């Protein structure tokens, strides 16, 4: 498979065209905005938390295929996760998309399909925008997260 076909594989195209959990949760526990000035991607992430568990998470916004698919998959994978699981998963995901060597035994599920990003260092920010936004929401940061 070429780099490009690896990056824009079926699963990712599918998520980018039909993003899951697209929308806004009413009365979310927390939410945050993310912004990637590089491509103008904007994202809003709203989250419902109960007893330390992410009960529901939705996103809104417009972005490139990579950032949309990443956000869509994030919502799928994060639903039902404990808050303190977020960080290790993000770190494993970050290692994956940057191609760093750090070994991990965390199961990334569908997120693993984003490995192709590692050949496109310019796109790492697209893949991680929703993650930074998630972290900001959990830390209840007020300001808009920027990847720059």
């Amino acid at each position, binding site marked *: 498979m070429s*780099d*490009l*076909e690896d*990056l*824009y594989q079926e699963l990712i*195209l599918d998520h980018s*065209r039909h993003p899951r959990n697209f929308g806004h949760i009413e009365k979310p526990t927390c939410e945050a905005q993310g912004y990637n000035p*590089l*491509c*103008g*991607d904007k994202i809003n992430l709203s989250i419902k938390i109960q007893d330390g568990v992410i009960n529901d998470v939705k996103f809104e916004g*417009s*972005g*490139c*295929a*990579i950032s*949309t698919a990443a956000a869509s998959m994030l919502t799928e994978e994060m639903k039902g996760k404990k808050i303190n699981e977020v960080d290790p998963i993000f770190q494993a995901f970050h290692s994956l998309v940057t191609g760093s060597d750090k070994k991990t035994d965390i199961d990334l599920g569908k997120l693993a399909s984003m490995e192709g990003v590692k050949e*496109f260092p*310019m*796109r790492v920010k*697209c893949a991680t925008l929703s993650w930074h936004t998630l972290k900001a929401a959990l830390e209840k940061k007020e300001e808009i997260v920027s990847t720059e």
Partner: protein
Amino acid sequence: MKKFDPHALRREFPIFNRKIFGKPLTYLDSAASAQKPRILLESLKSFFENHYANIHRGVYLLSFEATEMYEAARNKVAQYLGTQNPKEIVFVRGATEGINLVATCFGKTFVHEGDEILISHLEHHSNIVPWQMMVEERGAHLKVIPINQNGDLDLEAYQKLLTKKTRMVAVTHVSNALGTVNPIRTLSDLAHKRGAKILVDGAQALAHAPTNVCELDCDFYVFSGHKLYGPNGIGAVYGKKELWEKLPPYQGGGDMIESVTFEKTTYAHVPQKFEAGTPNIAGAIGLGAVIDFLKTLDWESIKIHEKNMVDLILKGLAEFPQVKLIGMPTQRMGVVSFVIDAIHPHDIGTILDREGIAIRAGHHCAQPLMDFFKIPATVRASVGIYTTPEDIQTFIVGIKKVLEVFKL
């Protein structure tokens, strides 16, 4: 004047030896910044290795030479813009600083509460934000000349917006996002009739054709060297002498003063008054060398050639029903903007990049224009004097590849 041959000319630009992911470089982003001819580096080398010193007030040979070279560069810029008086040329970092300088200094002298500044819906952020900042400080208002769906200025609306309150009309010569060429002479005649001044943002225009500020009859004309095949960090503002003389200084420091005491400082004459501190000496000299080079070119042929390249892009894109052009200006220069339904410009950029094709994807620092077309971003292909038909062919094949990857 040599017969124009884009392939021969291209050999003057060393970067085209670079391979991108193993492929030749197809550079279609000259509107963001143009590539550099060999002569630029040669002139920097010659300056740094043989004549380098700080300018002005130096009593030794190197400083004298550097000063003469710097002032000769000012002369070259003046001539290239069509004015005989080099004192009308102020060196700045680029178009952005030039507009900030004029907005700030013109504002202080001429803009009062309730006055109006007129810009257009086509403008680059650089020709919006400095005016916003100035009118806010001075209690004045910003008015916007509307455009139509083609991306042409609405001239009737312009005439209505021009009132006795209008102090300045600030418009781009060529739109960086759509390629629209504005009818500057018409705009300036109308502005002057109303007693307003006009600043022309020439950042996108000068690279495609030499211009003449006297024929345009504009009061200020700004441009960036780096878009004119020249170095970074240098650009210039042309201004009519009478106007320059009425403006207060911009930055304070060395070289812009006549005398300093703690109580009272008197300022030097134009243009030194507006060039505080050590300027970008090497940048100005490099720009001068590039202008010398540009002057040897056959611009009539280049204009035809660049138009052909733009037409080839338009023709190539017309083959794809998925491609939607943004803007169909009556007069276009250098730039084609488009979107593909269901593919984000950023993804298009990435796929083209793997083919060695450099285009710009984004809002092109023209968000209000994007808002007008109700899109967040476009893909922009722009041409330069080194663009060849092969570049365009590669680009069109690249677009085909984009559609394949996205299975459209």
